[in-house]
């Protein structure tokens, strides 16, 4: 008689106590949700960090030799190079831009800012305006919309920065970078605030980036990088800083989820020792017992993961409402990795309960009938 084959023992053991199952699912779901939240936040940061390169409108960034990254390198190029480059074949447009990371003290709170100084109606200014217009005169500023909202600023307001008074003339959309907001001023204002009259980069549009880039380097001795290259380098710089702590947190979250699954199944095993003893007594072999246990851990981890994904969606919605500066982004590859980790987790969580049942003497559970 093969009772084990016709009765869904694993499912009945797991669903026997719905309250405990609900609490376990909450624990697993919370931990998996946290893993997805961390991964989504990390991916969002990697997307945000390249916001400027991705939207500048340039095909090439002309930079100081040796420059590889906007995030970590301070590029300085002479403005005289603009004229040199403008005359080269293949160059449609060339504009200087100042990029400086700095800190604004707004209403007693420190805000990290990427100060962007560009020529009015030239390349490198705000790519999308929610309200108002671009800065065209000295001491005018366009703020990132979220930054403005957090400080109750709107067009017409003034703010004091590094001893200067700037007038808000517009609010920009989707202009957040890693932990920073982009703030757009004219080149003249940026030069005064930074104390440097030289540009950070020269932005170039061209239908032939490779050939034009080589021509620019040959003529000026400056380096040329595509926005994609700069973006890739910036992501690498950020990864070198943050990836360690993020992975550590994700690892801990997985450990927590594994323990929750193990605890749930182990508790169920201990409470049902008699039933398991009977199953063994009527012929269930070790392998069958193992399948019962891993069936439970797998069901719990898969169901918990589904709940975790829903919690992730809920979490991102809540965070998006109260802290819109945080972006979340999950790729299919992330979900595949998490799914594989969840499977590994279910196998690991089964270890202790399987061991417990492996040592169970069927005769001992029948005492006292």
């Amino acid at each position: 008689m093969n009772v084990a084959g016709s009765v869904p023992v694993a499912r009945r053991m797991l669903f026997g106590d719905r309250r405990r199952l609900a609490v376990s699912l909450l624990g697993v779901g919370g931990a998996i949700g946290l893993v997805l939240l961390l991964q989504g936040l990390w991916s969002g940061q990697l997307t945000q960090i390249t916001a400027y390169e991705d939207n500048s409108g340039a095909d090439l960034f002309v930079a100081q030799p040796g420059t590889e990254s906007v995030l970590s390198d301070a590029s300085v190029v002479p403005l005289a190079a603009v004229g040199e480059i403008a005359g080269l074949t293949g160059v449609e447009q060339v504009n200087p831009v100042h990029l400086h990371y700095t800190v604004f003290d707004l209403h007693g709170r420190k805000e990290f800012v990427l100060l962007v100084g560009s020529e009015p109606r030239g390349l490198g200014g705000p790519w999308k305006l929610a309200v108002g217009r671009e800065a065209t005169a000295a001491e005018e500023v366009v703020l990132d919309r979220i930054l403005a909202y957090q400080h109750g600023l709107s067009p017409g307001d003034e703010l004091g920065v590094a001893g200067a008074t700037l007038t808000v003339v517009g609010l920009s959309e989707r202009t957040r970078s890693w932990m920073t907001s982009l703030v757009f001023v004219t080149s003249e204002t940026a030069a005064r605030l930074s104390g440097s009259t030289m540009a950070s980069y020269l932005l170039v549009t061209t239908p032939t980036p490779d050939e034009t880039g080589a021509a620019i380097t040959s003529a000026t001795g400056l380096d040329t990088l595509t926005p994609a290259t700069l973006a890739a380098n910036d992501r690498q710089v950020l990864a070198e800083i943050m990836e360690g702590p993020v992975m550590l947190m994700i690892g801990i979250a997985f450990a927590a989820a594994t323990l929750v699954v193990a605890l749930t199944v182990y508790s169920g095993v201990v409470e049902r020792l008699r039933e398991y003893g009977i199953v063994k007594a009527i012929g269930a072999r070790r392998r069958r017992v193992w399948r019962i246990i891993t069936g439970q851990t797998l069901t719990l981890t898969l169901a918990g993961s589904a709940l975790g994904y829903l919690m992730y969606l809920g979490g991102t919605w809540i965070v998006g409402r109260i802290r819109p500066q945080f972006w979340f982004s999950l790729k299919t590859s992330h979900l595949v990795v998490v799914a594989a980790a969840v499977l590994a987790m279910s196998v690991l969580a089964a270890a202790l309960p399987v061991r417990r049942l492996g040592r169970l003497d069927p005769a001992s559970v029948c005492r006292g009938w």
Partner: protein
Amino acid sequence: MVPVDRRMLFTDRRRALLGVLGVAVALVMALALEGIFAGSTGQVSRYVETSPADVFVSQQGVRTIHMSISVLSADTADRVGELPGVEWVEPILFASDAVAGPEGRRATYVFGYQPGGLGGPRTIIEGGEPGPGELVADDSAATALGITVGDEVEILGRPWRVSGLTTGMTSIVNTTVYVRFDDLTQVLGRGDSVSYLLVGTAGDSQAVAEQIEAAVPGVEAQTRPLFSAEERSLVREMSTDLMNIMSVAALIVATAVIGLVLYATILARLRDIGIMKALGLTPRAMTRLVLTQAGWTVATALLLAVAITYALGSVVTAVAPDIDLVVEPASLARAGIAAAVVGAIGAIAPLRRVLKIDPATVFRRPT
């Protein structure tokens, strides 16, 4: 008196261990995250905290070094030096860039100072101060980048020879290098300006700082503790929202685990609780029973979490020396309070189960 609550909880040691570990791991998440940010906070302010200056002078509106641009005219040093209470003034230049070595690149602060002056590295553990075209790097970054004294590195678009190594100036975010003031002036094209003034004072530093602000227009003057606090607040304000999100998620996990532990314990002892209820155990006593078990679980888990976090800090430091995991008393206090709250919340479901037990039902023959 029989410690019923403790015995019920710890009779099955494996289950107790799993439960306590689960809560502990959730608390470790919160403690470790806070610890990493606390460590970063300390690292960011190290230049200021180890400086011999009593007052730091910067451009008006600029209250930090990290990610800041401060420009002062070169004659500001002379004007500050003439004020009473000022013993010495040291101008420095500051820039941010990346230092490239054979094995990688690291974001770096670049300080330009007068060799032999007070704006440079506090200690040099190998080699010497920089000459023209030379720099002093931090030993931790040097190891990571494969640099030794005498090697050539690239910063700000030009090569520099490493003349010496200092220590303690590399963080998770960046490292620090020191060059000659004249070299940095030339590279930055800042002929007639400086970034900051380091000021040594006699007597009350705060009074001197206020005097500087009153006498010299367009500057900020902050004492070293205040300047350091501003630097630390940078990291804190940058990380507060992120940490809150992660901490809330970690505490949700901890709440669920506590609930699970208590619920499993209660279920395993339903018969015993039913007997106690039949013998006169009041709802109040049952509540105390469940909450005491929650307290034991949380307290044990918290102690374990602290131990694991300290151990994790040692491992992290050994594997990644640039990451400093610092467990602060305030962080422990917050974790303790949060753990107590989640313990109480986690006890709700098992408490409801216990209060609804009908003593008669537990005497039925188990099926």
